[in-house]
């Protein structure tokens, strides 16, 4: 039972991230490969906030959101100039650069040594020490993300995001400020990704740069694509599948070296099969 709680925590943390990424990938149609870096910004904000300045979780959360938001504005404006695969490459570039900063700005992030000893969040004296209480916190945050995004996508803003995915130029000929809309969507998505990073950092209690390189971005990309583009429930389903799939393989008792590589093949195959035969993913509405 305890193990299922642990898996549920990982699922709810990753679903916050895949919901945020779906806003950019599924709704606005921008292939961003830099979200692992924002995942890292969230994690490092809390780690540095707690270990260096001894802030409590929620204060560090606020500062982290501001930092992630400002950086997202700069990167969002920069990425807004590109389209399609050039956008993907530019975002890959930003991820590598942010990763190098995590790795080499040693006096801030302790570089490759990482930051251990991140405490569990605490509010008015209550510490989320037990896994079950932490699960409630994560579930609350993922529910919050779901409702905010759900309501946001009902507004005209949500409509314009889908129109950007379809035909950006025609939309701007209607008089919309397309660049501002794209940047705002990127900032919102980055903030949710940072929140997910923060929760993971306080759960795993130790972070170092290796979890935030662009291979992770590719993993999150396939979570959203397999789950379903432009459908919030699809992202949650995608997260469940791609967290449980490698774990389920552990139980099949395959010879350990084959099992490990099998996981990679399954995950690559799922990506290709999805794009060939069901481009909108399980529950998605937008065919890529």
């Amino acid at each position, binding site marked *: 039972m305890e193990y299922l709680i642990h898996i549920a925590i990982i699922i709810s943390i990753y679903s916050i991230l895949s919901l945020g990424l779906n806003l950019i990938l599924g709704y606005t149609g921008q292939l961003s490969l830099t979200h692992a870096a924002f995942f890292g910004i969230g994690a490092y904000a809390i780690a540095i906030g707690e270990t260096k300045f001894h802030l409590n979780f929620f204060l560090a959360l606020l500062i982290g959101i501001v930092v992630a938001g400002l950086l997202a504005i700069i990167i969002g404006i920069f990425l807004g100039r590109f389209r399609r695969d050039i956008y993907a490459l530019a975002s890959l570039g930003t991820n590598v650069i942010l990763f190098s900063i995590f790795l080499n700005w040693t006096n801030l992030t302790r570089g490759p040594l990482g930051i251990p000893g991140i405490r569990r969040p605490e509010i008015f004296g209550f510490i989320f020490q037990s896994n079950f209480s932490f699960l409630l916190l994560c579930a609350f945050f993922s529910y919050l993300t779901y409702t905010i995004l759900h309501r946001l996508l009902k507004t005209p803003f949500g409509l314009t995001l889908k129109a950007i995915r379809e035909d950006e130029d025609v939309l701007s000929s209607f008089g919309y400020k397309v660049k501002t809309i794209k940047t705002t969507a990127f900032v919102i998505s980055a903030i949710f990704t940072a929140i997910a990073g923060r929760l993971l950092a306080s759960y795993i209690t130790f972070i170092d740069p290796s979890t935030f390189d662009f291979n992770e971005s590719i993993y999150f990309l396939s979570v959203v694509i397999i789950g379903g583009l432009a459908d919030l429930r699809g992202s949650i389903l995608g997260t469940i599948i791609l967290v449980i799939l490698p774990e389920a393989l552990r139980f099949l008792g395959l010879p350990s070296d084959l099992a*490990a590589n099998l996981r990679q093949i399954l995950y690559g195959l799922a990506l290709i099969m999805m794009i060939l035969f069901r481009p909108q993913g399980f529950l998605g509405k937008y065919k890529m």
Partner: protein
Amino acid sequence: MDKKIRVGIFAVAIMVILSGCAQTNIDQSKKENLKIGVVAPLTGEMATWGESVRGGAEIAVDEINSTGGVNGQKIDLIFEDNFACDKTASVNAINKLIKMNNSKINLMTCSGAVLATAPITEQAKTIMMVPGGSTAAIAEAGDYVFRTTISDDIQAKNLSKFIADSMKIKRIAIIYVNNDYGVGFFNNLSTEISTNGGQIVKSEKYSPEDTEFRTQLTNIKNTSPDALIIICYGKEGGTIAKQARELGIRVQLIGTDNFGTNEVATAGGQAVDGAIFSTEGIDMEQPRTKHLIDAYTQKYNHVPPVDYVVADTYDAIRLLADAISARGYNPDGIKDYLYGVKDYAGASGVITMNSNGDAFKPTQIRQIRNGKLVNYQN
């Protein structure tokens, strides 16, 4: 629309049932066996480490089980991949081992993974044995955390003393990998070298997946050091040595435990001939070590990629087996037994556990001579 949702939920349901039933049958059939979990990087760049850990563990358990196991109970190894030392995957693996397989003793590799999973094993009061993870920070990771690999600071102290006293080398250049192992070892080494009167004329960093070191080595060549220390994480050590020789750096090459592996010997070839490296007390002529290396080569028909990790894992399992036979399969008993280990003659040298649960072993200086790892005679 609803058809799709049903399909999605149905797929998830199968997954959960699958994991549930698979788990239960693990319990029934092997009720009486002792479970030891092993978390290692079986895929990705670190796979050679993972394979060494798997080899060392399997050979040890085969030997123990062939002699009837521990007090008649056979040992069962449960391998988990942590996807090239990924923290979240290690936490997933340790949670599964402790809570689903309720295995009270687990092996963990990669320093980052150890630091991320130590709080979980501490809380669950289960033993964590670390065969490969040498950063100093692990010493205070917890009282249920033990290491058969020696901490970097011990190795750095002995190596710099050896360089200063018996090799009489003063001007030293260092090139080291930019990850937790490399940076940690470099910090220890630089303090130790200056205390022993040595001087670091140039230090250069490189990123772990890099294969092109010519420019860093050119910088080093320019400061004409007396010796070049290579702190590498894997096979790139051989490529660094090769490129150094190609650039005309003829000085003595000195490596750390990760440099002294067969992989580096093959990658470096002639370039690493004569290079010395510090490692744990693996003494090739020592019967236990020789027997282990031959068993590995015979079982997997290739030479162990990182032999000191194979030896550390082998000793880890052996020590745990002795602890279980003495105190039974309960973590607290095993904990006290392990803290009391003194002068245990293992395949990786003579082990004494200190108060932090770190193995203290004499380090040894060894040499690579025409592709073989041999003991050093000057």
